[in-house]
């Protein structure tokens, strides 16, 4: 497929916009037109507001003209349509979390990342589908229908940020934002042949992100290249006085930092955790990842095996911590102030029971019940407290490994995209999809998934690179050094 506007990366589009070869309105029209064409097949969006997006684009063109006149600097994201996962607040737009609970809810305020994107001049485009309240790995848990994988419409795009990944892959957005609690950015990125980055915990403000598991959630970008991911990350990072868990730390210029590292000719030391290549890893995925590791060796990187011995406890600890936090975080959805309110409740207690029974889907209920259980009096020490200890051990595993290596390389997902319905009846099998990504959240580390090949059947495969805390620049540089040597990202889906 020839590269249309809607398929180009930010780096190229921002140049075209700067040179006046295309206007933001023209770009937005191209994306909107593409969306109208493919959206019936992909269903990446829960809602679209084309009129609003075109108005934003017109305002962007006006800003650019004014900046040109005054000589002011223009951000690389000026005029770039960026899709937003429907769990991140945009003032005046629906905020549904793909749940019946919030089917008609319109948020009155901007999330901090939304404010930052708008300040950079980006166009907030549409509300992207997800697993209900970001709980799932396939978008099948959405109350508004499953998103299709653009590379095979019979298959899932991954999740929970399935809409965010599919939209960028399908040319319905130039980049997008997702959220990652246990792999919800990296896994769908891998399944949709795009770049997905989960920043270090505390790098990006969570204010305005509907909380699933507060100590694990982090917002991050989906993009067509490592450079684009770095650009979006730069725009949304930084301390926020509205989020006490966001760190007071200088935000580096990621792209310049990457360029400097490249110039320095630094040879990376990469660790391959043996625990990530065992049972359950699809052979084709394993082979593609090994090939990518071989590329790194060719680049002169030092590759060595490392051990993350507590990996086997990660999924268990994760599902205790995440569900405990979600059981409390989702308590606010009670039908009293906003959201779904049962029509035939008889008293306050009945209002809670009926509104929540009607408003939440089965996976959300399952996790609320599990989380309520593990926090209950008499069980807290055995479950929650122990899981927190495991979490500390897992973080220690990583920090121990980082004494020997700069980054860790693994598969992102044990399998390529699976068929819709294939795992829907088996929650445990679904949970195991996140086996390689969960540890990163538990340890608060940055992680990225980049395209590293295709299966014989044409399904994308992702490579996960895990960085050291707050060393996103190094992580991005490691990712780009591989990305530069292949063309996987330009293999667009046929739609």
């Amino acid at each position: 497929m020839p590269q249309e506007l809607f398929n180009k990366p930010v780096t190229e589009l921002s140049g075209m916009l700067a040179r006046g070869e295309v206007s933001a309105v023209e770009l937005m029209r191209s994306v909107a037109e593409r969306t109208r064409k493919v959206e019936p097949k992909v269903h990446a969006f829960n809602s679209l507001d084309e009129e609003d997006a075109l108005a934003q684009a017109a305002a962007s063109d006006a800003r650019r003209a004014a900046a040109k006149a005054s000589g002011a600097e223009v951000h690389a994201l000026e005029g770039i349509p960026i899709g937003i996962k429907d769990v991140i607040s945009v003032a005046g737009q629906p905020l549904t979390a793909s749940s019946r609970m919030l089917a008609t809810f319109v948020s009155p305020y901007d999330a901090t990342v939304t404010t930052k994107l708008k300040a950079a001049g980006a166009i907030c485009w549409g509300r992207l589908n997800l697993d209900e309240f970001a709980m799932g790995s396939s978008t099948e848990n959405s109350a508004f229908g499953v998103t299709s994988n653009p590379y095979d419409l019979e298959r899932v795009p991954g999740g929970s940020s399935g809409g965010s990944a599919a939209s960028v892959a399908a040319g319905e957005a130039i980049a997008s934002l997702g959220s990652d609690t246990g792999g919800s950015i990296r896994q769908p990125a891998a399944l949709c042949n795009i770049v997905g980055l989960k920043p270090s915990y505390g790098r990006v403000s969570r204010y305005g992100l509907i909380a699933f598991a507060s100590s694990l959630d982090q917002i991050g970008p989906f993009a067509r290249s490592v450079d684009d991911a770095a650009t979006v990350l730069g725009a949304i990072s930084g301390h926020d006085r509205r989020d006490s868990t966001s760190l007071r730390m200088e935000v580096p210029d990621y792209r310049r930092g990457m360029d400097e590292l490249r110039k320095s000719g630094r040879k990376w030391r990469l660790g391959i955790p043996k625990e990530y290549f065992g049972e359950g890893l699809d052979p084709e995925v394993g082979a593609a990842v090994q090939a990518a590791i071989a590329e790194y060796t060719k680049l002169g990187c030092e590759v060595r095996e490392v051990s993350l011995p507590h990996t086997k406890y990660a999924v268990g600890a994760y599902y205790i911590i995440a569900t405990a936090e979600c059981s409390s975080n989702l308590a606010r959805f009670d039908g009293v102030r906003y959201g779904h309110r049962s029509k035939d409740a008889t008293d306050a207690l009945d209002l809670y029971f009926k509104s929540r029974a009607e408003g939440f889907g089965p996976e959300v209920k399952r996790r609320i019940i599990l989380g309520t259980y593990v926090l209950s009096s008499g069980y807290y020490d055995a479950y929650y407290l122990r899981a927190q200890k495991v979490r500390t051990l897992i973080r220690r595993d990583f920090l121990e490994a980082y004494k020997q290596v700069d980054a860790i390389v693994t598969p992102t997902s044990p399998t390529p995209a699976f068929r819709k319905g294939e795992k829907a009846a088996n929650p445990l099998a679904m949970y195991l999809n996140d086996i390689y990504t969960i540890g990163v959240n538990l340890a608060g580390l940055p992680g990225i998934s980049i395209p590293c090949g295709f299966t014989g059947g044409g399904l994308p495969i992702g490579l996960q690179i895990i960085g050291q805390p707050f060393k996103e620049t190094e992580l991005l540089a490691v990712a780009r050094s591989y990305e530069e040597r292949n063309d996987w990202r330009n293999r667009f889906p046929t739609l």
Partner: protein
Amino acid sequence: MTYETVIGLEVHVQLKTRSKMFTRVAAGYGHPENTLTDPVVLALPGTLPVMNKDALDKIIKAGLLLGCDIAPVCKWDRKNYFYPDSPKNYQISQYDQPICRGGSVEIELPGPARNVMGEHKRIALTRIHLEEDVGKLNHGEGASLVDFNRAGTPLMEIVSEPVIQSADEAFAYLTALKTIMIYGGISDCDMEKGQLRCDANISIRPVGQEALGTKVELKNLNSFSFVRDGIAHEIRRQTAVVESGGKIVQETRDYDGQTGTSQSLRSKEMAHDYRYFPDPDLMPVEVDSAWKESIRSGCPELPFDKQRRLLEQYQVPYTITSVLVPDGELSDYFEEAARLSGKPQAAGNWITNDLLRELGASKTPLSASKVRPAHVAGLVKLVEDGTILSNAAKEVFIDMFHSGEMPEAVLARKGLKAETNLEDLERWCAEAIAANSKSVADYKGGKESALNAFKGPVMRAAKGKADPKRVDETLRRLLAQ
């Protein structure tokens, strides 16, 4: 059998901060419903709490004033329960690591008479922790409405050890606690505005028994008197139950101060499992010694320490200090007037009698009073040196209170100055003596009261403006010649 009572009080005190505990929206009372809200207060999806440092400063100050140990880290937990007045359906609170532990409140029990100081004792505290207040439910017909104005207001929970032994002690405890909170600028503790709320855990046991009896929690004690009455009522109720062979059931009871009765709200079986866990949205805050010391340096003298000092330093009666001390501002006012006048007791009398009466009658706060300590001191001096008589001084005070003029100016304007023309006084006295030889004889014969016979004519001649003390002295001197 005789029984003794064991009471523990849980007192909730709203902190006097400009904004709420975890967001910047204003805290306040009496505003139209749901106007002191924002996305955080309403727990809209995606919102996060951010700690109000002023609230932490204030609870640390409270802890320092009460002699508590201040924790090195302020840690936050979630207390999970569903209730429509709680927007998140969890309350951010402190569970296993309260910011303050230990400490005590010095109380004064009622004395044998109003003008005699009562016994002092210390009520030990278990802990003080910080949390957020909930909204308010207004139950109407067929529907209940929620007002979230109060939701998220910083709230301090002060838990006493079970060492309070009577309803009077409980009353004294609350009074002392309130005074300290007001002194520290921590809270106004206005119960009518819900700024102070009290629950009591009450049990009885036979005298001499070590083990505590089964406790009953009494709620809705919404005035200090209701606390005293409710506790007294509960002690009587428990005693009656036990004496008739019954058993106390562990429960929560609701006290109705209007009718003086209580009824069961819920039993222990219905107790909540709050599923406490550390709030992942709030990082623990380190409270280092520099922070604590900077707060300590702003701590005022404690009320009872002040009272002991006033008694000692100014040698004023207990009754004056017991009026002054509950009001720190009034105490400062007194000390200033005492210093300027050099006559603490006279100044104290003016302040505790006349000033408070006029302030009360005109509903004027002390800070807005036109009569300042210098006015009081000036008036004290004028009375002291005989320039003005005490009846006239009362009139001058009221005039000053309204005009704000200094006493000398009022005096000059109203012509209330005492007669000071000594020549006239000498003459009037001499004339009175000359006109009444019988009384002269009586006086010289040892009849002291005969002196009064001369005073009437002198006062008449002076048109009431003579200083009785000076008239007395002059008559005695002339009669002795």
